[in-house]
């Protein structure tokens, strides 16, 4: 009798899992969404008209057991445009380390295929200098993020495939593989973990051109500043070299009405 109840319990439990779980998943859309659907949903997250924040990067190098840390402090101001020829304008100022303090970087991004316009101000140089886009694979300020990583991607630049599901800190995630459509990308593929409830990135794996795992990015802390999600803490680790970058974002402001004239040479050279 006791054994029979136990057997029934097992059967019922199995049946429940086979019926209930798929039903729940189906209700969440797991069984119906494609990789493209998921990434489109993420891409459709509201974007602020303007954004300012402070970014602290800690670069950690582990050379034969010796840990070396370097710090970078940056402020960013970004304005996004819904219409017109510009997609966005941004002004980044470096505050540390001492040898780059005061360096400014101004970028105008166009909605069309036109190359971004970029200017660099080095206090030692004394004038703004027109520059061309850095080679995509180049490291941003010595971090584990490249210029390609920072550039953002349009939805049509990759082919997406939903490859599975996972759980990160108790949150269900879609796992989506993205293969670049264009030649010349630094990566053969990226694998994204998308939070199924919040529709934000939680983790990214980057694979090099030989399809070897290259870097892993984890978004560890985030916050909902209605209607925007703010990443507060993320880390990127180069698994091939052991180098790691920790990024802390703070003093975040959204939609504070910054004028177009802020993203000009005048403010680039003000060095404030």
């Amino acid at each position, binding site marked *: 009798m006791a054994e029979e109840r136990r057997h029934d319990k097992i059967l019922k439990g199995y049946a429940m899992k086979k019926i209930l779980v798929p039903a729940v998943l189906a209700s969440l859309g797991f069984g119906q969404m494609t990789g493209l659907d998921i990434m489109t949903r993420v891409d459709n997250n509201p974007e602020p008209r303007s954004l300012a924040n402070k970014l602290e990067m800690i*670069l950690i*190098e582990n050379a034969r057991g010796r840990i*070396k840390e*370097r*710090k970078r402090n940056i402020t960013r101001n970004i304005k996004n445009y819904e219409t017109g020829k510009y997609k966005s304008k941004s002004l980044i100022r470096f505050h*540390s*380390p*001492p*040898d780059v*303090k005061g360096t400014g970087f101004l970028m105008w991004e166009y909605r069309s295929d*036109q*190359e971004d*316009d970029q200017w660099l101000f080095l*206090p*030692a*140089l*004394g*004038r703004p*200098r*027109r*520059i*061309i*886009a*850095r*080679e995509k*694979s*180049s*490291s941003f*300020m*010595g*971090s*584990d993020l490249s210029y390609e990583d920072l550039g953002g991607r349009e939805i049509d630049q990759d082919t997406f495939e939903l490859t599975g599901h996972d759980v990160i800190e108790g949150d269900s995630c879609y796992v989506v593989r993205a293969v670049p459509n264009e030649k010349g990308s630094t990566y053969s593929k990226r694998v994204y973990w998308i939070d199924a409830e919040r529709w934000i990135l939680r983790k990214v794996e980057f694979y090099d051109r030989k399809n070897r795992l290259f870097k892993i990015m984890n978004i560890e802390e985030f916050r909902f500043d209605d209607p925007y999600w703010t990443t507060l803490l993320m880390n990127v680790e180069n698994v091939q070299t052991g*180098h790691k970058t920790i990024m802390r974002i703070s003093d975040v402001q959204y939609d504070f009405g910054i004028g177009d*004239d802020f993203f*000009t*040479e*005048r403010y680039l050279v*003000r*060095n*404030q």
Partner: protein
Amino acid sequence: MMIRRFSAVLVMCFTMNLSGYDLTGYFQNWTAVRAVDDHEILLSRNRFRMDMIKSSASGRAYSSIDFTSHGMGTGDDFEMTIRELYLDVYIRNWDIRIGKQQVVWGKADGVFVNDIVNPLDLRFFLLQDFEDIRMGSPMIRANGYFGSSKLELLWIPVFEPWKFAPPGTPWSFPEVSASTINDLTVNMIREDHELPDRRLKNSEWGLKFSTFLLGTDLSLLYFDGFQDRPSVYVKSFEQTDTVLTLNLIPTFDRSPMVGINFSKPLAGILIRGEGAYFRDARFNRQALPGVFVEKTVSDFVQGVLGIDLTGPFGSSLSFQYLKREILDYSPTIIGSSESETWITGMFTGSFWNENAAIRFLALYDRENESGLVQADASYNINDALNAGVGLVGIWGGESLSSSQFNFGVFRNNDMVYLKLTYSY
């Protein structure tokens, strides 16, 4: 006197309330040894730089002071230099800067075509860092911003010339002191230069209009100032049957400049250029016996075209082609060729997550078949401490009747150097 000034500044810094001021700078040692022959110490410079900034929405105060000990090379021992000291005031669409400041006109690296506002410190020839080779000048500068255009106005009350190493030091330009013409020995004694009188009529002024047009940064310039290199006149002379002695006074003459510069990215390459036309430039020429050296006037043009490319791993490559031409040239002109052509190249790269950097620079004077190469490597020991090593090679003939910067004069100064910098 210098020690007292240094002490006074130190006391001031420690006693005044520095809260709200941004204090940065560095301690640096730069030591260079001649690579051949006697391995003479060509440079032994210790520098403490202190930059102070106070900013607000309506303006900014900035000072940059160097305390430098020159071990050898310039003949000076200790100096305190105010590199820049100015006040910025922001009024509507105008930013006004008053005080000692550097102004960089131009797009070129390592060559000076439009970049003629500030005098150069050539006490170490062209080997100083770009930020140190230009000397700040007291001036009033106003920048007006009108949409994507900018109008810049300058007024420099007092002209200051380039600075050269004292005679007899490793980086001094040799001067012709004697020559023989038709069995007559000619001795030239060059006295201290005469500067223009400190009067309003001898001030310099400039105007620059910049705009962003069809993806191109474009500037038009006008500068009414004095030539940076003096020409001499004969103050007096004495002659015997076999010897002619000339006492020469270097003086500076006004030569207005109109110029243009641009930069534009095209298919992943940055193209940039500068051009300048100098009116009534003065040169020296041999004259008839009796007055051996005299001034002559000619217009003069110079221009540079450059390209910049980027590569993987943070590398960049740039090339420049520079041309200078004296328009009314005469073979009797001394110290300048009719035309000069320079080709320059620079490669920079960083690696190990920008812990290390390398740079290679080459300057080549085609007419005189002379030039300079410089290679250096640096490593960030930590965020504050950087160590670098480098070498410089210089070649060419020692003729003085050639270019603006005659590399061959320093062909024996090939050197190896160390640079250690602690930034704060």
